[in-house]
């Protein structure tokens, strides 16, 4: 069965500090991994996906198949990064998206 684990419910960092939001997955096949973000009073939206290997708003995430992880990183956090972040997995050959429990990021001034 597919599973996505985000071990931290809340992560607080100071502005300018590095950020790492952890995501581990369980899936026997070849997964597609995503990060979705929900800013205050906004809809959940795609932040980035591993197959595009792009950096969005300074965030990057590398798929580590050996550790089955897809951690989200940013070298210098900004106050506007404060939001709820969800890691998601889509099983290959399906349309099924499984989300983790989410991590609330608070960037302190």
């Amino acid at each position: 069965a597919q599973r996505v684990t985000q071990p931290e419910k809340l992560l607080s960092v100071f502005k300018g500090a590095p950020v790492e939001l952890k995501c581990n997955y369980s899936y026997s096949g070849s997964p597609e991994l995503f990060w979705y973000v929900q800013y205050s009073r906004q809809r959940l939206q795609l932040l980035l996906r591993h197959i595009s290997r792009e950096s969005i708003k300074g965030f990057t995430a590398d798929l580590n198949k050996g550790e089955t992880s897809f951690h989200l990183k940013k070298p210098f956090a900004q106050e506007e990064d404060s939001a709820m972040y969800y890691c998601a997995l889509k099983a290959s050959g399906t349309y099924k998206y499984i989300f983790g429990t989410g991590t609330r990021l608070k960037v302190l001034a």
Partner: protein
Amino acid sequence: DARVTQTPRHKVTEMGQEVTMRCQPILGHNTVFWYRQTMMQGLELLAYFRNRAPLDDSGMPKDRFSAEMPDATLATLKIQPSEPRDSAVYFCASGLQGEKLFFGSGTQLSVL
């Protein structure tokens, strides 16, 4: 700017009452998902459809929940009878061929 539309935005009801939540997916999207958001479980997948056919509803309590797509512009999630533990935010999302999901604003349900 195309958006997924969910109604109602808020619903307060009493235990035992029927609740119906509606979703209008983005025109042309062929996959529709229902998720439930809670603090403890995060985003739980309840059910999803492709081309209006249900593909997986294993996340739904079958005895009280039902999900349907009567046509391509409407998806419904029904709870009958509702219970206090059903209180949560219910999200609908749509996508095209498994590409990124577009989420609605959610329905905040409170069952007293």
